[in-house]
C-alpha cells in the first residue's frame, strides 16, 4: 500500500487553497484570495506544496476536495480537478463538506469547540451547519444537517461561535443579533483543515473513485420548469 500523502484542494469561495499532508505528518499549504481566478492559481499552488513537501506527484496516495456547498462553478473546479488527478495518478478521492472545513478551520484559529458555519448563498439565504468537537478525534463533527436557510430565519444556537460569510450577509441584511466577540464573518475555508478532515475520512474508509464524484450543492432548484407552448 502507498504511504499516506494527501493533496487537498479547496475552491468553493472567493479563496483558493491547497494543502498536502505527508505520511510523516508534515503539513504544507498555500492560500490566496483569488476571486474568479481559481483555475489560474490552482496548478501553481499544487506544484508549490509538493515542492515544499519534497514529494513527487506519484507519491500522492489520495486527492481530497471541498465538495460544497459554495459557489457552484467554484465547487466544480475543485471536484473536476480532483477527478483528473484521480484518473491520472490512479488514486482515490476524498470529498469533504466545505462547511465542515470552515468549522474545522475556525477551531484551529479561534479554539472554538462549537461552531455554526455559514456561507453566503446569495438571494437572502445562507448554507448552514452546526459543528461540535469530538474529543476522541480532535475534529469538529456535524450536529444535525447542513441546510439552506433564509437569513432572517437563521436561529443562533447558544454557546456556538459563528463563522463564515453567511454572517457577513446577515450583518448586511441587518439581522445578525450576536455579540461581535463570537463572530468571525471574514473567515474562509482553508485546505489545511480539509486535509486533516480527509486524513480522518480515509482512516474510516470514506474514499471515492472518480466516477463516484460527490458534490453537495444543497441548493438544487436552479431553474423553473416550463410548460411546452401549444396552440
Amino acid at each position, binding site marked *: 500500500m502507498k504511504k499516506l500523502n494527501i493533496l487537498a484542494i479547496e475552491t468553493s469561495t472567493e479563496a483558493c487553497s491547497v494543502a498536502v499532508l505527508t505520511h510523516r505528518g508534515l503539513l504544507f499549504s498555500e492560500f490566496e484570495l483569488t476571486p474568479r481566478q481559481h*483555475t489560474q492559481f490552482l*496548478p501553481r499552488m499544487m506544484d508549490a506544496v509538493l515542492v515544499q513537501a519534497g514529494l513527487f506527484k506519484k507519491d500522492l496516495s489520495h486527492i481530497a476536495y471541498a465538495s460544497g456547498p459554495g459557489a457552484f462553478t467554484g465547487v466544480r473546479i475543485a*471536484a473536476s480537478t480532483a477527478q*483528473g488527478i484521480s484518473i491520472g495518478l490512479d488514486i482515490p478521492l476524498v470529498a469533504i463538506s466545505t462547511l465542515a472545513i470552515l468549522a474545522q478551520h475556525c477551531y484551529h484559529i479561534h479554539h472554538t469547540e462549537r461552531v455554526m458555519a455559514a456561507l453566503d448563498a446569495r438571494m437572502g439565504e445562507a448554507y448552514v451547519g452546526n459543528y461540535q468537537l469530538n474529543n476522541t478525534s480532535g475534529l469538529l463533527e456535524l450536529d444535525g444537517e447542513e441546510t439552506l436557510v433564509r437569513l432572517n430565519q437563521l436561529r443562533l444556537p447558544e454557546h456556538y461561535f459563528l463563522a463564515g460569510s453567511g454572517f457577513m450577509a446577515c450583518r448586511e441584511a441587518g439581522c445578525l443579533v450576536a455579540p461581535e466577540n463570537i463572530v468571525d464573518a471574514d473567515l474562509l475555508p482553508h485546505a489545511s483543515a480539509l486535509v486533516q478532515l480527509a486524513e480522518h475520512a480515509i482512516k474510516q474508509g470514506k474514499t471515492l473513485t472518480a466516477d463516484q464524484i460527490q458534490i453537495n450543492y444543497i441548493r438544487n432548484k436552479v*431553474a423553473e420548469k416550463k*410548460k411546452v407552448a*401549444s396552440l
Partner: protein
Amino acid sequence: MKVLGLESSCDETGIAIYEVETGVIQQRLYSQIECHREYGGVVPELASRDHVVKAAPMIIDLLQQNGGVHSLDGIVYTRGPGLMGALMVGACIARALAWALDKPVLGVHHMEGHLLAPMLSEDKPEFPFVALLVSGGHTMLVDVEAVGEYKILGESLDDAVGEAFDKTAKLLGLPYPGGPELAQLASTVSATDLVFPRPMVDRPGLDFSFSGLKTFALNTMHKLTPLSDQNRAEIAFAFEQAVVDTLQIKCQRALKQTGYRRLVVAGGVGANRTLRKRLQQMSAKLQTRVYFPALEYCTDNGAMIAYAGGLRMAAGQRDENVTDVLPRWSLETLQRLN
C-alpha cells in the same frame, strides 16, 4: 500520437481517443437532452452539473478499453466557445489529467471541431473548401483554406438555424429539441399552398437571418387557428422548405464567390435530410461536391475535438499556462497549421 479529447461546451458530454498516425478513433457520448426537456431548453447550471457526473465514467471506460491512461501522449479539450460553467468542467478535468501525467494539453475551438469533422469519414474533402456550419448555436459560412486558416464569409444576424427549428417546433407544440421532430412532421406532406419568406436572399452578401421565419410561422398559426394536424404538418413543411432554400442559395453564392468546388456541411442541422438532398442536387448541377460528416459526428461530440486537437498537437502545438476557458472565441483568430 494518441490523444484523449473532451467536449463539454453545451449539453453533450463527449469523450474520445484519437490516434493520429492510424486514424483510429473511439468515442463515448452522453446527451443531456432528457435532462433539459422539461425546462424547454438548455439550463446552463444543470448542464454543468451533469458534465461533472457523466464525464469521468466515460473517460475511465474508454481508457480501460484502449490501452490505459499511460498510453496517452496528450489531452485536448474544448476551450470555447460555449457555456462558461460547462466548458470549465471539461477544461479542469483535462488540465488536471495532463498535470498528473506530465503530458501536454491543448484547448480546442469547438467550431474547428465541427469544421474538421468530415475528415473523420473515409471520403475526406481536400482543402480548400467552403464550410456551412449549422447547429443549435451557430450558422455560418466559412472559407477554409487550410487547417486553422478560416475566414467567416457570412453568419446569422439573429437566431441560429437549429434555434429557429427548435423555436418553431416549440410553437407547434413539439417536444424539445424540436428540430428533428419538426423535420419528421414536415416529411409527412409533400406540398402546401403556404409560402414562407426566404430571408435575405434578395440582398447581396452571405449573412443569414432566421428570427423572422419563426414570427412568420407564429402569424400563420394565428391565421389558421384552430390548427388541424394537416395545418401543422404544412407549416412545418413550408418552414423547412424556406430554411433549406435559403441555406442552399447562400451556399451556392459562397461557392461562386470563392471559386471553390467543395462544400462541407457540419453541425447538428447537417443531419436534416431535406437539406442534404437539396445540397446534393445543387452540387450535381454545379458540378461541385458536397461532404457531410457521418451522423454521429454531426452533433456535438468528443471525436471531432480529439481529431482537431490531435492534428494540432501532432504538429507540435501545446498550451503553456492556459488557465481560462473562452465562452466567446472567434474562429478567425486561430493559428494556421503547417
